[in-house]
């Protein structure tokens, strides 16, 4: 994965080969979301990396095996965030230029 390294801790009886698939799936998700993901994407958007992970794994187990569903869920959450932000934008702009 270019300059990206992933480390996954598993239990004794876990299937190592499927773990490789899990890592690969996660990279694919990141790739789709960021468009050709690279190290900087993950650094500057670390919270998004977590959010994507949280839609793929839950409590250490795979929760969704459809790439499409995971990405859809993230999209919806992002939209929710955007809507909320838009509602407040005027205020923040004023604050940004130093006026209360």
């Amino acid at each position: 994965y270019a300059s990206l390294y992933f480390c996954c801790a598993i239990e004794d009886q876990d299937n190592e080969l499927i773990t490789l698939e899990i890592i690969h799936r996660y990279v694919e998700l990141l790739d789709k979301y960021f468009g050709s993901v690279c190290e900087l994407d993950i650094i500057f958007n670390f919270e998004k990396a977590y959010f994507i992970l949280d839609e793929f794994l839950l409590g250490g187990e795979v929760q969704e095996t459809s790439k499409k569903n995971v990405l859809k869920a993230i999209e919806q959450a992002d939209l929710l965030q955007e809507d909320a932000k838009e509602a407040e934008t005027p205020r923040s702009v004023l604050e940004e230029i130093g006026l209360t």
Partner: protein
Amino acid sequence: MPGQRVFLHSRTLPVRMVAPSLKLQDLIEEIRGAKTQAQEREVIQKECAHIRASFRDGDPVHRHRQLAKLLYVHMLGYPAHFGQMECLKLIASSRFTDKRVGYLGAMLLLDERHDAHLLITNSIKNDLSQGIQPVQGLALCTLSTMGSAEMCRDLAPEVEKLLLQPSPYVRKKAILTAVHMIRKVPELSSVFLPPCVHLLHERHHGILLGTITLITELCERSPAALKHFRKVVPQLVQILRTLVTTGYSTEHSISGVSDPFLQVQILRLLRILGRNHEESSETMNDLLAQVATNTDTSRNAGNAVLFETVLTIMDIHSAAGLRVLAVNILGRFLLNSDRNIRYVALTSLLRLVQSDHSAVQRHRPTVVDCLQETDASLSRRALELSLALVNSSNVRAMMQELQAFLESCPPDLRADCASGILLAAERFAPTKRWHIDTILHVLTTAGTHVRDDAVANLTQLIGGAQELHAYSVRRLYNALAEDISQQPLVQVAAWCIGEYGDLLLEGNCEEIEPLQVDEEEVLALLEKVLQSHMSLPATRGYALTALMKLSTRLQGDNNRIRQVVSIYRSCLDVELQQRAVEYDTLFRKYDHMRAAILEKMPLVERDGPQADEEAKQSKEAAQLSEAAPAPTESQASQLLDLLDLLDRASGDAQHPPPLDPSPGGALVYLLDLPCAPPPPAPIPDLKVFEREGVQLNLSFIRPPENPALLLITITATNSSEGDVTNFICQAAVPKSLQLQLQAPSGNTVPARGGLPITQLFRILNPNKAPLRLKLRLTYNHFHQSVQEIFEVNNLPVESWQ
């Protein structure tokens, strides 16, 4: 000056006091722009101060941004505990952005070891019951990541309700949260068990996956649950079958394999349900065979499923053919170009080598090839597996491979390889000479890595193989002449040269090239060892003693030896000094005893004292003849099936009994041999067996010095026209007696009165219990294999009273 403390940057920064706080991305950029660790710390400390101030002021608008920055800083390893309360506030906020960051903060900063974490329980409860789906998702995610036992108990009812929600998005998360809860609070199993069977009927892959994970967790924790869920085995089989036979589905497939994650999870559950359960195992047999043969193995996804299938097949009660198929799949994995796949194959085969030995044996050549792996974790496992596959039929070939490996293997594997080879050689050596050669080879190749007892083992082995003394001493001499740095080798060589120096100089030995060795050369070599800085103190001790022994073995005068001994009387090493002084005294004052004292040593007991102590005791033992060859391990273990009469006699006969654990033990052992005065009343011989000209006789001796001991010599004769070959005699005695079988004189009795086979049995009978003896003979005669088992009748009463 304050200005100096601002970080030097090419662009101008906004003045802090008036401007709003930095955006997250800007902070990250700043931190990454720092050129030194100290600079980074400065940036972060400054920013944290601002964040803290902002938290104090209670600014709700930017709180999420402040926390996000704090989380980044936390990831770099800086303290962030002051953000914990902010997480709570953010979670309680109604804005989605706040909740998203707040819950993330909770997962990263709140710790179940500190009570503060309990404070979010209420917020989670509210979000679970009233929040919109994404919010419910956040809450469930947080709960399953950091939920403590207390939190789980409190929130179980909420999660249970969500299991029945229509939306699959929330349901799949609720199911996995239940898994976490059961891990934290096993009693909650009773809450989450009932919905499972119903959930299995779902079609949504996420829900199915979660449900199977949940069932797996339940079964692993409770035998009752395990029993309960066995009834869904047919359903699971059906689900998996559908997955495997359905065509390509873009949504869930990876490289032509339908939802490998789900397949693997189902296979794992099937494994748990089928283990130790005949009926369930049978239900899944066909399906497992189908998956094993039909899965596309061109990419990792297929191999992952195949691997899980193999693990399941091996763990349940599967048909023999299926098991062989599974092992063969692993064998194929060994040839795969992907290192990871070779790795899992080696680890799995290692686990199976005991239970399915012959199936794994078939892949021995491939395993041996894996020794050449460059990757350390692979070559290590290949070594372990190779050692486990050594048996008496392949020992020669395997040892060749392993010895070749030993020569080139990485240093951290040397010790394991060396001790593995030595152990295998001990167990399976076809001949003594081969055994000696093997140990010699290991000592020359990897001498510094062998275990401490290798020296003792080799000296005992050589000592016991009288016919190989000349051969051994020559080989060792040659090896020593080439290299005196490998201590174990030097020690054994020195010992041998000391003991058998006369054989070394004799000239011809059949099995090795003729070697002309000069007395002076031998002495020079030992002196070299003695003086070398590479020699350990123990090694030098061996060399000195060897020199001393040679004084009686060599023809020439002993001036040179006397000189050396004399020099070492003032050696700084106390041990050497003592020896030198004693030896010197031997020369000067007790020369008449020297020959007797330095006679060839009797055989050292395997557990016995060090060879050097024996030298001192050999003073007294010198009168007696050389000891009989080493007792072989009794084969009575194979007589277990005969023991109905003799109540577990074999248990005792398995180990040569330590007659006397003290150092004097060896002496008692020697005194047992019938040497000096003949026994008072000879016990008559007894013919115990006759068949087609093959006869077995027993003769009895009870040495007067040891009333508990009985020596039986069996003699096998052959007056027929056909040779007797592969003759083996095994014996068993009652439990209260101890039996030791010594090595027979051979395995063949030639026809028409050829040289008989004799074998000595030593029986200890301290309680004077009535002697009973059961014999088992196996041999080949007239192209037939004969086995006879019988109890000896008419044993003379004098043999045990």
